[in-house]
């Protein structure tokens, strides 16, 4: 009952303030009239009665105020008027408001965007049940760290391990789906039957793979993603059992995955088929090729360390039931990684560096807002003292200032949300290829809330300082501040904060410079071929039934080359199985090489064998010419090198020749590349220059080239490289049309210039550098604003002092110098402090640097020069204003 009355009465007052006020006035007026009447009745004259009544009632305005001020609705009223006043204050000072709100927006927005992007990648648990039990299993390779598995070894680990619930092997698969009007190339994976079980997913429709189907010449079955099911199959609920045409073969749909399934191990995968390798493990087959990734689920209660030691034990202790091929890498040991660590390993250093950068930026933004509020608080001391003198209580003033800070934070936060939303999108767009879990990235609400609250709390605390100072007794002094004689002690605080800003900005700038110079260095590394005017695309044979034999494959590619070479503007063209710097994992293409060390080929040969690993390229004649790879010795491939030659000719890279043969001539020497150990020897016919395959930063890669026609099997897809006379990209449509003139059903994909691929190969460094540069520029601007703000303020405060100086004969250049010096002292202090910070921070990005020492003097000098120049400009404006002070005016103003 009473609560109801509280609410309704209060609301009535709130919404009909005027009527409520009239009611109070009426009641008080009536009281007074009654009092007058009573006095008249008591025998006083009307005049005396009125006087007596006034004495009795007191000041009617005060009484009305007292009655009015009762009730909760007054709190609301005060808040609304505070808010209105705050909005007016902020509106009256658009410069301060804009800078403060934008600074907050930048700080809140940038940090929210970065943390939103990084959180799901680095910290969030993967979207699988008990994701912490999922691990990946690799060979420990001597120089590349981790290497892919062979099916044979995967089978052995699967059978012998006791610490794993299940283990699965998989590789990428890109079938072309026909049947509809337009054939479409799909991204997918070939997996062992246990794959989905390891991840802990079950199809939402239909069923999982059956282990019995995962055998050679097993049935063609696929599981598809929810997205593919909706897009291509009309979300048909009776799809299970339907046939799809993939690469010309019929496949039966077994199941459809649930809509929430995120394919972390193959972000774009939409379709899954079975590996169907030969359980008999023939020695020369693909079962012993190192091209499978392995993922496993640990048994409950088993940790990764125990699994690692068990799997390594298996690796080092062969048993007769599981015969291994010579040269299987298993004896070097195995590596077990948590799945999340595994997928983030490559991007972690870059992401952590970016997080560091955004923390710096957030700090700078916070310092800047603090400084702005302090400066403003100092300016408002007079106003606040005046309000206190007029009777505003301390709580009232504090509440007012908090309202202002909150309003500012609210505006900044709203803008920040905008910045964050745009920023997240920009980050996803800019992110380097191979960034995991992009689909999980979105504005992360808790992070946004955190940065909003953090900056608000700081704003409120800082905003309170002047309020508390003003409401403390020293009204007199504060009101007298009309003539400030010196810059007060708070000038020191603000100076320190500005120096801190400069220091933080320097840290960002130096690191941005180091990254920039690293990229510069990297892109000046010769890749070993000429990337200019080079066009590439992948050409795939998607309907093997049309090309049943290896020779048919080769005939198609040869015919395609012939027509491409006819296209006007094409200077040369060739096919290759591997394209340098295409961003693919090179461990797939590493082959073991046996080197014939002795001159004899007797039975003692085995002991004289050298073992090596090299990248294998299957190329068509003309490849080296088209790529611009120089010939050092011997000859290149030509039309003599066709299938069926008695001895297979090979071309090797300079680094391979040097390592295998030292200074002796490798031409005519014998090696064996791939295949079973008892194959006939191949012969080296030429030595070519080294080529960067994995990345510009990677060391020399030993490589062995064979012709596609003479390689052990026919391969698809192959990369077409086209050397253009002019603009390479412009040739693409004509080249594609030429290929389709041979067979219009074979897909041509990943069309790109090699220049673009080279740039993309350093995408992670570039990404981090862009973020650092953007943040560095923002930091520079904020530092400049900070310096400007402090100096401008101090000039305002010292106007009288400067006037006196001018009156006493200081020239305007003296005053200019005086003010400039104040500003530059702050800059220099900041730079000195920042040097230490920059040196420490560069530890964090050391893995991203290339060819530039951590303490590279050029990066430091340029950053310092830039910062000094910008701060000089920021100092110049207030200094020039100070120099223009007219002593007569300032002194008269006293």
């Amino acid at each position: 009952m009473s609560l109801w009355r509280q609410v309704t009465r209060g609301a009535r007052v709130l919404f009909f303030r005027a009527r409520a006020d009239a009611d109070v006035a009426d009641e008080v007026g009536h009281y007074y009239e009654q009092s007058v009447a009573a006095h008249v009745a008591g025998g006083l004259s009307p005049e005396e009665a009125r006087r007596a009544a006034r004495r009795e009632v007191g000041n009617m305005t005060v009484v009305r105020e007292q009655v009015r001020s009762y009730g909760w609705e007054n709190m609301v009223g005060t808040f609304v008027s505070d808010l209105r006043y705050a909005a007016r204050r902020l509106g009256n000072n658009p410069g301060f408001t804009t800078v403060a709100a934008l600074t907050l927006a930048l700080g809140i927005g940038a940090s929210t965007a970065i943390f939103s992007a990084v959180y799901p990648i680095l910290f969030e648990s993967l979207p699988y049940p008990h994701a912490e039990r999922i691990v990946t299993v690799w060979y420990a390779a001597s120089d590349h760290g981790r290497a892919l598995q062979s099916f044979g070894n995967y089978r052995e680990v699967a059978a012998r391990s006791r610490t794993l619930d299940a283990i699965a092997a998989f590789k990428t698969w890109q079938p072309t789906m026909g049947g509809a009007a337009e054939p479409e190339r799909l991204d997918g994976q070939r997996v062992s039957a246990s794959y989905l079980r390891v991840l802990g997913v079950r199809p939402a429709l239909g069923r999982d793979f059956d282990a019995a189907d995962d055998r050679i010449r097993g049935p063609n079955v696929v599981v598809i993603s929810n997205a593919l099911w909706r897009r291509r199959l009309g979300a048909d609920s009776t799809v299970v059992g339907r046939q799809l045409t993939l690469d010309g073969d019929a496949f039966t749909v077994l199941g459809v995955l649930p809509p929430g399934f995120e394919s972390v191990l193959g972000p774009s995968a939409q379709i899954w088929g079975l590996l169907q390798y030969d359980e008999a493990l023939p020695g020369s087959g693909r079962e012993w090729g190192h091209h499978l990734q392995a993922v496993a689920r640990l048994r409950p209660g088993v940790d990764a360390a125990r699994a690692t030691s068990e799997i390594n034990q298996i690796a080092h202790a062969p048993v007769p039931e599981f015969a291994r091929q010579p040269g299987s890498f298993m004896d070097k040991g195995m590596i077990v990684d948590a799945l999340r660590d595994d997928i983030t390993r490559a991007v972690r250093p870059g992401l952590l560096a970016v997080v560091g950068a955004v923390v710096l930026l957030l700090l700078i933004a916070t310092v800047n807002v603090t400084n702005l509020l302090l400066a403003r608080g100092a300016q408002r001391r007079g106003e606040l003292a005046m309000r206190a003198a007029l009777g505003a209580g301390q709580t009232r003033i504090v509440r007012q200032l908090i309202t202002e800070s909150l309003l500012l934070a609210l505006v900044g936060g709203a803008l920040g949300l905008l910045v964050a939303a745009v920023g997240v999108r920009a980050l996803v767009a800019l992110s380097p290829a191979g960034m995991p879990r992009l689909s999980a990235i979105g504005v992360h609400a808790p992070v946004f809330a955190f940065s909003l609250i953090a900056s608000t709390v700081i704003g409120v605390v800082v905003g309170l300082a002047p309020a508390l100072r003003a409401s403390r007794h020293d009204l007199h002094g504060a009101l007298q501040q009309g003539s400030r004689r010196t810059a007060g002690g708070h000038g020191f605080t603000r100076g320190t904060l500005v120096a801190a800003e400069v220091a933080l900005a320097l840290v960002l700038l130096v690191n941005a410079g180091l990254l920039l110079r690293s990229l510069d260095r990297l892109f000046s590394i010769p890749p070993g071929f000429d990337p200019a005017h080079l066009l590439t695309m992948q050409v795939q044979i998607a309907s093997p039934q049309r090309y049943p034999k290896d020779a048919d494959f080769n005939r198609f590619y040869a015919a395609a080359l012939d027509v491409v070479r006819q296209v006007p503007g094409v200077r040369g063209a060739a096919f290759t199985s591997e394209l340098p710097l295409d961003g693919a994992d090179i461990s797939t293409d590493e082959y073991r090489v046996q080197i014939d060390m002795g001159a004899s080929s007797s039975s003692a040969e085995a002991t004289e064998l050298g073992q090596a690993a090299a990248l294998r390229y299957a190329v068509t004649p003309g490849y080296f010419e088209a790529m611009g790879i120089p010939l050092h010795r011997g000859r290149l491939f030509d039309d003599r090198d066709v299938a069926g030659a008695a001895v297979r000719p090979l071309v090797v890279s300079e680094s391979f020749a040097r390592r295998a043969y030292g200074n002796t001539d490798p031409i005519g020497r014998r090696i064996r590349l791939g295949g079973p150990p008892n194959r006939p020897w191949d012969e080296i016919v030429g030595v070519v220059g080294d080529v960067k395959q994995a990345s510009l930063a990677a060391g020399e890669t030993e490589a062995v080239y064979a012709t596609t026609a003479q390689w052990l099997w026919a391969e698809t897809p192959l990369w077409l490289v086209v050397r253009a006379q002019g603009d390479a990209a412009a040739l693409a449509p004509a080249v594609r049309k030429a290929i389709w003139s041979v067979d219009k059903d074979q897909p041509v994909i990943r069309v790109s210039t090699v220049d673009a691929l080279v740039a993309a190969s350093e995408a992670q460094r570039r990404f981090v550098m862009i973020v650092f540069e953007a943040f560095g520029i923002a930091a520079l601007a904020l530092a400049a604003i900070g310096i400007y703000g402090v100096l401008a303020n101090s000039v305002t405060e010292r106007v009288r002092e400067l006037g006196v100086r001018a009156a006493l004969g200081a020239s305007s250049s003296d005053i200019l110098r005086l003010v400039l010096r104040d500003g530059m002292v702050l800059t220099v202090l900041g730079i000195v402090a920042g040097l230490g910070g920059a040196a420490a921070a560069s530890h964090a990005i050391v893995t991203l640097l290339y060819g530039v020492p951590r303490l590279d003097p050029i990066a430091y000098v340029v950053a310092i020069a830039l910062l000094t120049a910008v701060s000089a400009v920021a100092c110049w404006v207030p200094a020039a204003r100070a120099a223009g002070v007219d002593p007569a005016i300032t002194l008269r103003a006293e």
Partner: protein
Amino acid sequence: MDDNTDVIQGTLDMLILKTLSLEPLHGFGVARRIEQVSRGVFKVNPGSLLTAFQRMERAGLIDAEWRQTENARRAKYYSLTRAGRRQLGAETEGWARRVSAVARLLNAEG
């Protein structure tokens, strides 16, 4: 006038309730009644009185009603609600208990 005392802290509500229990009154009527009955010992501050009305009205102890007076003016009359009557009973009892306790203490001392 100098003999007048402000109403003892915390008893204003009780005095208002008691006064209104006799008949509905407007603000000045209540003030005058308290003054008269206390023989001028208690003097009521109009600001406190009218604020107390607001509070008690919202607490549901009294009802307010605007009435037209003879000289074409509005006057706000207050009357006791059932809850107010209960409250008056409780407060009177409590007050009596406290008074006798204080009296006993004073007597013991004297």
